[in-house]
């Protein structure tokens, strides 16, 4: 009980801090001045922080939404009878691809798609696919085959088995996959600024180039804070779905 209360308080405080830090210039200025009294230039002037946040989240939202839809589709397709031959391949290729560093995927998107927003979104999409595919497959595979057979035996169609038995029972694992995908994408999008995609990496890179630690910290704090908040939100969403372990205790 108390540890949960502590956590909730911590989350609310951090969320408040993040909102103030991003949207209240004076607050941010105060924080940074406190940390870097010697630094003259504390605020990145070229683009405002809220704009960078929006750019960042736009990249993540588009790529992750695409990755979720396509990843779910692939995961479901290879667990259907017709696509089952491809299941080991899908699993192997996606774990093979996960050994590719996200930064490398981003870098490789550049020769193909050039600079800016598009190649970043494409790279994030591809990389974000993998956890969704993996978790969809393992979620559906972990549904007890006898439960599936019972569903078929009650007269469910293939579609009904998928939507009423397999997906509800694996939803939690699938959402966990989407969560991983989104968190990875928030991180990789930061690097996207090196190919001119904008986002929170911009201010970090600017800080590194100009040796301005205040800039670096501005971007780092904001990116980390957003990642935390999104992670909590997904943590909450996960609990909405069936969990084979937790219901045991109720």
């Amino acid at each position: 009980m108390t540890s949960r209360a502590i956590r909730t308080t911590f989350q609310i405080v951090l969320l408040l801090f993040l909102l103030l830090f991003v949207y209240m210039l004076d607050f941010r200025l105060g924080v940074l001045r406190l940390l870097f009294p010697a630094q003259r230039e504390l605020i990145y002037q070229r683009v405002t922080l809220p704009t960078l946040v929006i750019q960042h989240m736009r990249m993540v939202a588009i790529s992750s939404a695409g990755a979720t839809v396509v990843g779910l589709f692939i995961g479901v397709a290879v667990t259907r009878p017709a696509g089952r031959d491809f299941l080991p391949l899908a699993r192997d290729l996606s774990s093979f691809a996960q050994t590719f560093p996200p930064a490398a995927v981003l870098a490789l998107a550049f020769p193909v798609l050039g600079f800016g927003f598009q190649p970043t979104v494409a790279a994030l999409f591809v990389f974000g696919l993998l956890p969704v595919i993996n978790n969809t497959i393992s979620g559906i595979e972990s549904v007890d085959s006898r439960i599936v057979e019972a569903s078929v035996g009650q007269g469910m169609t293939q579609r009904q088995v998928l939507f009423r038995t397999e997906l509800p029972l694996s939803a939690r694992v699938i959402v966990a996959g989407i969560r991983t995908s989104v968190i990875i994408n928030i991180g990789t999008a930061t690097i996207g600024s090196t190919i001119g995609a904008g986002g929170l990496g911009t201010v970090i890179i600017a800080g590194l180039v100009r040796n301005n630690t205040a800039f670096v910290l501005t971007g780092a704090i904001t990116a980390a804070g957003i990642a935390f908040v999104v992670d909590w939100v997904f943590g909450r969403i996960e609990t909405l779905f069936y969990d084979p372990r937790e219901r045991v205790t109720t």
Partner: protein
Amino acid sequence: MGGTGAEARYSVIEFENVSKHYGSTVALDDVSFTVPDGTVSVLIGPSGCGKSTSLKLVNRLLEPTDGYVRVDGTPVREFPPQILRRGIGYVIQSVGLLPHMTVEENIGLVPKLLGRHKRDRSRRAGELLDLIGLSPDEYRNKYPIQLSGGEAQRVGVARALAADPPILLMDEPFGAVDPLNRETLQQEFISIQRKLRKTVIFVTHDLDEAVRVADRIVLMRDGKVVQTGAPEEILGAPANDFVREFVGSDRALKRLARFIVGDFMIDAPSVDRGARLDWNEYRDFEVVYVTDDHRRLLGAAPRNGRAEVSSAGDAMDDALVGAVSLGSTLRDALAEILNTELAETPVVDEHGHLVGRITMTEIYSATPRRIV
């Protein structure tokens, strides 16, 4: 059952020269048998004999390589599988309940697939929970994980009955339940079946279970039918050495489980607790039973050389109060007889009223004269 079974639906299941091959493996080899309307046929045999495979051919979870499976004369392959399955109740070991749905949602599954209204489904779930002896208010909103093995199994049966299908397929339905509960479930199943008269195929590897619930037994081995018949027939006249070995050397004992005490009992001598017991009146009896004002059994008074005449209450030895109920089997009666010092056991009805007795004579009368 509120008249749900009123519309007389005729349903016979026939297997005609059915074979099922997996590559070069033969799971079923030219199997033919018939399950008459409203009866229970138990498929039994060692593991790998093809009993579960046969069951799954009926609701088209599997398709035969050769031959026909018919329901009411129509080959099942002519029905769309989903439609067919919604008309056939299917019970498997307790894991078959959907863990993310409540008991009520599980029971309402097939009615929902059939497009029944939520209110009707809820009412139906209540009726069925009553039927299987679980309080609807208490169990309706529980999840499968919150049920004991026996309860989950009952819900599984309720789910299969939800759409009132004329046919039930039961694949080792009580296999995951401990022996004590299994026997209770079997009794309940028998009494439900007596009311509903479904056409049932029941798969088990437990011969005692088969003997208890079956109208007919289909004994299988290596994908072939070895012998079919009423349990008494199979236990009394095994067709070959395999059957003899399968049913075991205690088959005579098993056979006794087919006979109900009520059908064999004879009158029992009794006196009221307050009355005088004069052994001269009971010259032919070794035991006289003592009852209260309402004919409830209190105990037994054995002859063993006591005073010729005494108060019934004094002569009674209440350590000898063991009894069997009307619905028990002769096997239970025999066990009870062997448990007491007496050579017989009293029979009581559900209120504890003395209704008769069973002696070794009745037990012998149910045993075939010549056991091979």
